[in-house]
């Protein structure tokens, strides 16, 4: 079934991101733009980003999906915060 990019698609994508057993992401923002659906936020690995892209495209083949998800950096902190 062709699915227009409407609010129900937005809701379904948001739930897929969390409830799909291979995704389990609650920290992704789904933005419904004029032409496409933008996914943004950060995940812990490139594999997770790729899996999100694959699953969402497979579930919504007629929706133009733009994935702008970063991998959270894990460098040591440059400085401490003094809380006196």
């Amino acid at each position, binding site marked *: 079934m062709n699915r227009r990019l409407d609010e129900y698609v937005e809701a379904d994508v948001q739930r897929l991101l969390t409830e799909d057993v291979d995704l389990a992401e609650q920290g992704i923002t789904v933005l419904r733009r004029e032409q496409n659906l933008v996914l943004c936020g950060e995940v*812990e690995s490139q594999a997770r980003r790729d899996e999100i892209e694959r699953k969402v495209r497979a579930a919504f083949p007629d929706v133009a999906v733009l994935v702008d998800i970063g991998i*959270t950096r894990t460098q*040591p*902190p440059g400085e401490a*915060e003094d809380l006196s």
Partner: protein
Amino acid sequence: MIRVAAVADVHMDSDVLGRYRPALEELPDKADVLLLGGDLTRHGSAAEAECVATEFRDLGVPVIAVLGNHDHHRDQVPEVVKTLEGGGIAVLEGEGTVIDTPGGRLGVAGAKGFGGGFAGRCASAFGEPEMKAFVQTTCDAADRLSEALRRLECDVLVALTHYAPVPDTLLGEPLEIYPFLGSYLLGQAIDSAPTALAVHGHAHMGSERGVTPGGVKVRNVAHPVIKQAYSVFHLHARARAAA
């Protein structure tokens, strides 16, 4: 001075193994303790907990954790806790612990917490049993946290939760989901004791800094918020007023 390192929402699985290790090698030079603020795993499986135990093992400083909602997903909490403890991680739920550091005795009380929302915009224990159960879950968590905080004998007191105790650190999240991100009852629990710092996670799109109505500094250390392996806070023991 007591140096507290903290991170939350590391959501470990085998694909993340080793990512934190280079930064963790530097931990003993930077901090006296590491706090993990929940969502340690993706789904709360024992296998994922084993990844957490492996990643945060033998760091040279004590590691103290609370669980998050993701760690409850598979309904295997006892196995998850046992696995984490096997890696030397202390898991707190309505309990506290005191560790001796060169800067004094650090007390940490922890509880996962729950949602419910914030003053004037919160859920009430009224109506359907499901609604009462939701609110009661938060009340119980807040009561346990308050008791744990008030019981601890230490020089510096820190509260560790997964859910947020104030709305300040949710800035960046959609307002509509605030009631699923935290509860003012946790803030009230934190204010019921001489808490020096409250650390939480869960709000991946929130912001770093906030303060409770009672003036306790709150820090959201969710990994995507701090954008580094962990944050470090320097705390100072305060002379207690004579009783």
